[in-house]
């Protein structure tokens, strides 16, 4: 199962980076979103995959006993999703504002500060 997920994560990273290199601003934002999702899946896979085990300490024990679902990566992913959501909301408004100010969504028109 980890192998399948590794391929999925790799595909997401590839798609994300491909989109970041496009000329349209909207595709750029979509690519960033995909990269964030790929990173989240990576944390998920790194926390060891199990089927249907709760992230709870069993009755009478004091520590998690194998097999269990590691709760820490779940918390990390939730935080990362929320942060990504906030940043993406900002990025979308930035795109809208940039389109209003510059008049086009072509990144090649945004080169005047690069000199």
């Amino acid at each position, binding site marked *: 199962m980890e192998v399948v997920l590794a391929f999925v994560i790799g595909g997401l990273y590839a798609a*994300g980076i491909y989109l*970041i290199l496009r000329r349209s*601003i909207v595709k*750029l934002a979509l690519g*960033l979103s995909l*990269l*964030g999702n*790929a*990173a*989240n899946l*990576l*944390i998920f*896979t*790194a*926390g*060891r995959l199990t089927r249907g085990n709760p992230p709870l300490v069993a009755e009478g024990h004091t520590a998690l006993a194998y097999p269990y679902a590691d709760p*820490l*990566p779940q918390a*990390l992913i939730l*935080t*990362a999703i929320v*942060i990504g959501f*906030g*940043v993406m909301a*900002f*990025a979308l408004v*930035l795109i809208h*504002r*940039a389109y209003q*100010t*510059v008049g086009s969504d072509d*990144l090649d028109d*945004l*080169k*005047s*500060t*690069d000199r």
Partner: protein
Amino acid sequence: MHMTSGLLILPVLIPLLTAVGCLLGRRWRGVQRVLGVIGAVALLVTSVGLLREVWVHGIQSAQMGNWPAPFGITLVADVFSAVMVLVAAIIHFAITIYSLGTMDMRREAYGYYTLLNILLMGVCGAFLTGDLFNLYVWFEVLLIASFVLMALGGERAQMEGAFKYVTLNLLSSALFLAAVGILYGAVGTLNLADLAERMPQVASPGVVTTIAMLFLVAFGIKAATFPLFFWLPASYHTPPVAVSAVFAGLLTKVGVYALIRVFTLLFVHDTGYTHTIILWISALTMITGVLGAVSQNEFRRILSFHIISQIGYMTLGLGLLTPLGIAGSVFYIFHHIIVKTNLFLVSGVVQRLRGTFELKPLGGLYRLYPVLGILFLIPALSLAGLPPLSGFFAKFALVKAGLAVEENIVVGVALFVGLITLLSMMKIWGEAFWKEPDGEPVEGNPPLRHVWLLTLPIMLLAAITLTIGLMPEPFFEVATRAAEQLLDPREYIDAVLRGRP
């Protein structure tokens, strides 16, 4: 115990409360400005208290929510963190005073002071946290605040600059997150002290080196090292001067702080590989930054490229990984933040007087405003490394440390780059201050008002540079103690995991 946990939380709490107060009072301009100043002064006092506490009583740590380490989030202050919080507070104070005189009403109404304080909250949180994922969260806080500050005002140049800034920093955050995830999978914890303890026992050192390289790229983008710095000259010169100055002084240095923390505490098992790469990256950063600066003709673009080249000096000390090298790095960071912010503030005053940042139309400023000329020369010559200013001792420490381990090529590069930096600063001096102007001087739009509010922070920062230069001994002692604590992590680990009082 109680007092130290309060003292560790205050640098995060004070900017937060100031931001909330400024947001609630955003309809009344006076309320925002008074609160902003009060918050800046309170942060400054707290940071001095924190440094004193850490200096006298050793590394301080506090467990948030009373969850014991390594399960909870720890706030840790060693001398390095406390020094960074102090210099961040100094810069915050200077920028707040400067903004009182220059920020336009529209930006203030849309929450400029709120955003500035949230930025400072993120910066102080990043300096004080002892948990790697918490570091990611604080990085995101300061990043979002910086995104909004970059775009606030909506001018076309700002939109363009904001795009490049946002894209590359989001990429860096995604890489940071990936590295954190893989590290957790490999070691099983994210508390920095616990990681430092468990790192030698990881089964496959190759994986650890790979993770180290991922961190190097992620923090390298944030710190603007070679070859990842191209977002900086494309974006730092677009927002208003007060915002440019706080970005130039603080944001890249948080990346350098993270690099130093991670590569002295966590990834020290393969220094022949990792730190040699850091050494060569430093050399290339120094050269490409300064060559970029020489080719520019606009005040702020030149300064932006110089930020990059000076970052190379800071990572040079890290790459050497000797006590003198790291002490030189810490001293360099302190000196450079003050000097770089000062230079940006001076460029703002020049723009208000003459209406432009371009060097060609400027001229004759020294004849009319000799005090401004001196206030430019102090940070400029300090940046180039002339004695008796702070830059000289910072560069001297790094060169001496480099020669001690026989890294002669990198030292040669550092000295050559210092020479070119001097050339670049003299170019600005000659074009903007010394030569006669081409046509009639045009006043800036908006013009220079509230002269004292603009000059006071510049004079304050110049005075600090002079003090460090004329009396470097106490500052260097602090830097040496910080380097000792960084190179021997046992005190850090004990303070966090064993909870020394």
